[in-house]
C-alpha cells in the first residue's frame, strides 16, 4: 500500500471515529429531550422538534458555506483536494437539509395547521436545497474534472451568498417562522409581545444538539472526504 493510501485510510478512520462520537451525542440529545425535558407551555411536546430542526439547519448551512469557501479557494489555488472536500461537504449538507426540510413541516402541521407555507424563510431554504441539487446535476453532467470543479465552485459560492440572507429573512420580511431562540436580546420592561429567553431546562438540549450535530458534520465530511480522495487516487492510478 502506498503512503498516500495509508494517509487516506487514516482520514477515513478518523472520520468514522468522529462520526460515532456525533451519533452518540445525538442519542444523548434524544435521551435528554425525551426523558429529562418538560413540554413547552404553549406548543407542548412538538416544541422538542426544535432539537433536531435547528441544529440540522446549522449543520446544513455550515456545510454549504464550506462548499463556497473551499470552492473559492479551489478557484484561487487549483488544488483538486479542495474540490473533493467541497463535493463531500455538499453531500453532507444535503443529508442535514433533508432532516431540516422534513422536520419543519411536521412541526408546522401541528403548530401552524399546515405542512408548508410559502414563507420567505421556508421558500429560500427550499431554493438553497434545490440549488445544491443542481450542483450535483451539473457535476454529474461534466466529465472533465477541472471543468467540473470550476463550475461546481461557482455554484457553491452562489449558495454561500444565500446562507446569511436566509438567516436574515425573519428580520427582513413579514415572516411567520419563529425568531431565533439563541442570541435573542432580553425583553424591554413593558413589551407584552416580546418572547422571553428560553429557560435553562429547555435550552440545555438545544445547546447539546448543536454540539452533537457539529461533531456529526465533522465526522461525516471527514469520512466522505477520505472516500473522495480514494476515488481520485484510484482514477489517477487507472489512468496511469
Amino acid at each position, binding site marked *: 500500500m502506498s503512503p498516500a493510501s495509508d494517509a487516506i485510510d487514516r482520514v477515513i478512520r478518523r*472520520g468514522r471515529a468522529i462520526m460515532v462520537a456525533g*451519533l452518540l451525542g445525538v442519542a444523548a440529545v434524544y435521551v435528554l429531550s425525551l426523558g429529562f425535558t418538560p413540554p413547552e407551555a404553549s*406548543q407542548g411536546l412538538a416544541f422538542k422538534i426544535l432539537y433536531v430542526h435547528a441544529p440540522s439547519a446549522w449543520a446544513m448551512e455550515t456545510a454549504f458555506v464550506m462548499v463556497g469557501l473551499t470552492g473559492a479557494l479551489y478557484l484561487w489555488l487549483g488544488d483538486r483536494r479542495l474540490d473533493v472536500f467541497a463535493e463531500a461537504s455538499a453531500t453532507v449538507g444535503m443529508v442535514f437539509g433533508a432532516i431540516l426540510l*422534513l422536520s419543519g413541516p*411536521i*412541526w408546522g402541521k401541528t403548530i401552524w395547521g399546515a405542512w408548508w407555507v410559502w414563507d420567505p424563510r421556508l421558500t429560500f431554504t427550499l431554493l438553497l436545497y434545490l440549488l445544491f441539487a443542481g450542483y450535483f446535476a451539473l457535476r454529474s453532467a461534466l466529465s472533465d474534472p477541472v471543468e467540473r470543479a470550476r463550475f461546481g465552485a461557482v455554484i457553491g459560492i452562489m449558495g454561500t451568498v444565500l446562507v446569511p440572507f436566509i438567516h436574515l429573512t425573519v428580520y427582513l420580511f413579514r415572516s411567520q417562522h419563529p425568531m431565533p431562540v439563541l442570541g435573542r436580546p432580553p425583553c424591554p420592561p413593558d413589551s407584552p409581545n416580546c418572547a422571553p429567553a428560553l429557560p435553562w431546562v429547555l435550552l440545555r438540549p438545544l445547546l447539546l444538539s448543536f454540539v452533537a450535530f457539529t461533531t456529526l458534520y465533522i465526522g*461525516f465530511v471527514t469520512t466522505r472526504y*477520505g472516500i473522495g480522495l480514494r476515488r481520485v487516487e484510484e482514477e489517477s492510478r487507472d489512468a496511469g
Partner: protein
Amino acid sequence: MPDNGNYLTAAYIVAAVILVGYAVVLWRAGKQ
C-alpha cells in the same frame, strides 16, 4: 397544552433514520 407527541415521535424517527442510514452508507463505502 396541545397533545402532539405523535408529531415529535415522527420527527425524531425521520432524523434518526436519515443520520444512522447515512452513517452506515459512509461506513460501508469507507471499507477497502
